Each structure stands twice: as C-alpha cells, then as structure tokens.
C-alpha cells in the first residue's frame, strides 16, 4: 500500500474574506493509480490541490494523507515555474531539501532528465525550452524527488497534442511505478485515458466520486451531468475511449 493512501478530505472548508471557496468537501481516495479531479471553472479544484500539498491551510476540516501524513508530495503547476538557470540546475533545486549525497543527486538528475527526454539539454537555460519541454522538465523535477503523491494541475492545458501525449505517457509510467497521482484536467479524453477514478467538484463540494467510466458515462448527480454535457467533446472522446 502506498504511504500516500488513503487520502481523506474531511469536512474541508476554505474561506477567504467575503467568500467561501470550499464548503464541507468530503472525499476519500483509497485506491492507488490516478485520480482525476474535474468540475467547472471556479469549482475549487486548484484550491483543493493546494490544500493537499500544504500550500494553503484549511479554514475547517482535516486532510489526512496515508497513515501518518509523511508521504512525500510534489506539485506540477499548469504553467511550469522554472528559475533562470540550466535545465539540470532546476532539477537540482528540488533535491536540495532531501539531503542526498552528491553522487545520488547527480544520478537522480540524470535519470529524471533521461526519462523525460531532456538529457541532451541538461546544460541549456531552462527558460529557452519550448512550453512542452518546460512542462516535461517540471515533471522531471517532481519525479527526481521520488514523490509518493504527485499533484498535477492541468499539466497539459497549454500543450499541443504530441506534447500532451508525451506527458500523459510519463504520468501513466509514474503511476505504474507506484506513485499516487491526483490530476486536475478539463480534457475529458485525457481523463478517460488516464484516470482510474474521478471526483467531480462543483461549487466547493465533491458531488460525485466513482470509477472513471461510471462517472463519465453514467453520472448520478445533476451537477456532474451538467458539467459533462457542457464540457465533453463527444466526438473526440468517443474516439479516445
């Protein structure tokens, strides 16, 4: 069992002055593999990921990750945030808090870059990479830390189909290696291809949670039906599934 499981979100609330963003959100993610978080714009998906990562603190409720909350987490944002330094330096930065030996650090950087196909670019300035390459670098950076829980917020939103496919393959490979993955995506074809289960958020609550096929094809709640009807590109989705 992955040390990141189960992930329990209990009566989770997140408020900012004058606004309730999450409102008594309940979900338990117990299965390994890839869980997708879907829902309309402003539903609270990104806030939920930030809460799980610890970037935000809940106003109410609790988040329990695994038995003792010690699971190593990594976050890949929609827009890759890279520092103005070389490709390998960007990965090295993520390894700093892990206190690895120099040898282990070098070998992890090399392996991570090789895995995303950027080994030949290790010395290049990271900001000179294309959008897709930057996102792959962000994934390599997360990968190098060997996370037990990986949070992905619309990682392919600005990528072309080829780059999207490359990233999806990497994500699937990581999940296969035992990393628990939570992914937010508006690309329902991608959700169908990658996710084992799906949580639907609407107006700060989890309105539905079930196996991918069931949620996408036979949503039980009106909110999930409304979202899927509006967002689902039926033709491409049918082709993908």
């Amino acid at each position, binding site marked *: 069992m992955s040390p990141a499981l189960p992930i329990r979100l209990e009566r989770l609330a997140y408020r900012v002055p004058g606004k309730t963003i999450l409102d008594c959100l309940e979900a338990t993610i117990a299965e390994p593999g890839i869980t997708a978080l879907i829902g309309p714009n402003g539903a609270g998906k990104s806030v939920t990921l930030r809460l799980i990562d610890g970037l935000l603190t809940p106003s109410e409720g609790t988040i329990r990750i695994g038995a003792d909350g010690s699971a190593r987490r*990594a976050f890949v944002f929609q827009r890759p*945030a890279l520092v*103005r330094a070389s490709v390998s330096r960007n990965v090295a930065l993520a390894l700093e808090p892990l206190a690895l030996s120099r040898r282990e650090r070098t070998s992890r950087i090399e392996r991570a870059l090789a895995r995303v196909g950027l080994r030949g670019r290790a010395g290049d300035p*990271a*900001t*000179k990479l294309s959008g897709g390459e930057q996102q792959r670098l962000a994934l390599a950076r997360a990968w190098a830390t060997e996370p037990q829980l990986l949070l992905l917020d619309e990682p392919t939103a600005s990528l072309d189909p080829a780059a999207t496919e490359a990233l999806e393959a990497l994500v699937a490979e990581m999940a296969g290696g035992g990393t628990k993955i939570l992914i937010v995506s508006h690309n329902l074809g991608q959700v169908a291809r990658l996710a084992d289960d799906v949580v639907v958020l609407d107006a700060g609550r989890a309105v539905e949670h079930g196996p991918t096929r069931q949620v996408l094809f036979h949503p039980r709640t009106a909110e999930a039906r409304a979202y899927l009807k509006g967002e689902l590109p039926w033709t491409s989705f049918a082709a993908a599934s």
Partner: protein
Amino acid sequence: MHETLSDTFSRLASLDREVFAIAWLSLRVSLSAVLIGCLVGIPLGSLVAVSRFPGRSGAVGLLNAAMGLPPVIVGLVVYLLLSRSGPLGPLGILFTPAAMVAAQSVLVTPLIAALTRQIVADAEAHLGEQLRSLRLSAWRRAGILIFDVRFSLLTAVLAAFGRAISEIGAVLVVGGNIDGFTRTMTTAISLETQKGDLALALALGLVLIGLVILVSMAASLLRAYAARAYG
C-alpha cells in the same frame, strides 16, 4: 560662446588634473553609496516582498514614497545628525567625503529597496508557490528569487547610481564643496557656472554625462548578454 567651447575641449583634451580629481571623487562617493544601498536595500526590499506581516502595505507605501526623497532634505537631516551637537557628531565626519557617502546612501537605499521589492514581488508571484511546494526554507527561497532577478536588479542599481552621481543637494549640504577635498562634479559645475568659468563647468558636465552613459552602457551590455545566456 565659440571660445568657451574650444576652451572646453582643450581642457578635456589635456584632462586637467583638477577635472580628473573631481570626477574621481564623485565616482568614489557615489559608487560607495550605491554599494551600501545595495547591501541594505536589496535584502530589505526582498524581505518586504516575500514576507507577510501586519502593516506591510503601509511599509510598501512608505518605501515607494521614500524613493522620491528630495536630496537637499536628506542632506539636511544627515547634517543635523553629523553636526557637532548631533547624535553622530563625535564621529567628526561632517564636511568630509564620508559624510557625502552617508548622505547619498540614505538617498539611494530606499530607491534600491523599493525597486527590488517590485522586481522580487513579480518573481515571487511567478515562482513563490513552486518554491514553497519544493519545501525550501524561507531564506533559501529569498536567495533563489534574488538570484533569479539578478539582471533586473541591475536596473535598480543603475537608477540608484544615476540619482547619486547627479544629485547636488545632499553632497553640497554635508560636504561643503571644499576645494580639493569634497568638491564633486555637480557642486563644481554649479560653482564654476556662478564664477563664470563656463569652460570648466562644461568640461565637467561632459565628463559627468560621459560617465553616466558609460556606466549605463556597461549595464545594458551585461543585460543583453544575460538575456542571450539565460532567457
């Protein structure tokens, strides 16, 4: 007029020792002040940019307002501090280059801090969350942000140098424009103009402009190089 101009160039050409000494003093004083301004202003601005504390927006407002401090007022305050009966009087540095460095430091520190805060805040908006997610310590995060914007900070440093080398109020009040000791380019230009030695005033003016252009060209070359190397 024609005579003044040719006289200006002949004095420039001979690189009059007096002109050279004055330019050198100006440069030393202003560069020292900018160095002190960087040592204080860059960490201060970064700290305000990355930390959250009560009264922060007030601090930012104050910092921004302090960018426009009138040099002569800064000179006056530093004069009062350094004068014999002032709290720093025992130092005995009034009417010395050290006093001019002190006054110009006070002048440029808020400028550097305010510009640094803006530049680092922009970088924080872009990178901050990612760095926190990597569980890097606050100090480390601040260090990474400053390093990331190092070439943009050059603009702030340059602005500070421009302000320092071209101001007259502060150096005049605390330095006293003493011939051969605290006379800078700006105070000399003002004095020589009043005395009617327009050739010397113009020669000094050309040197001053030349210095400012040289420094800013060096800075933009460095930035262009950095943009090519780091994007």
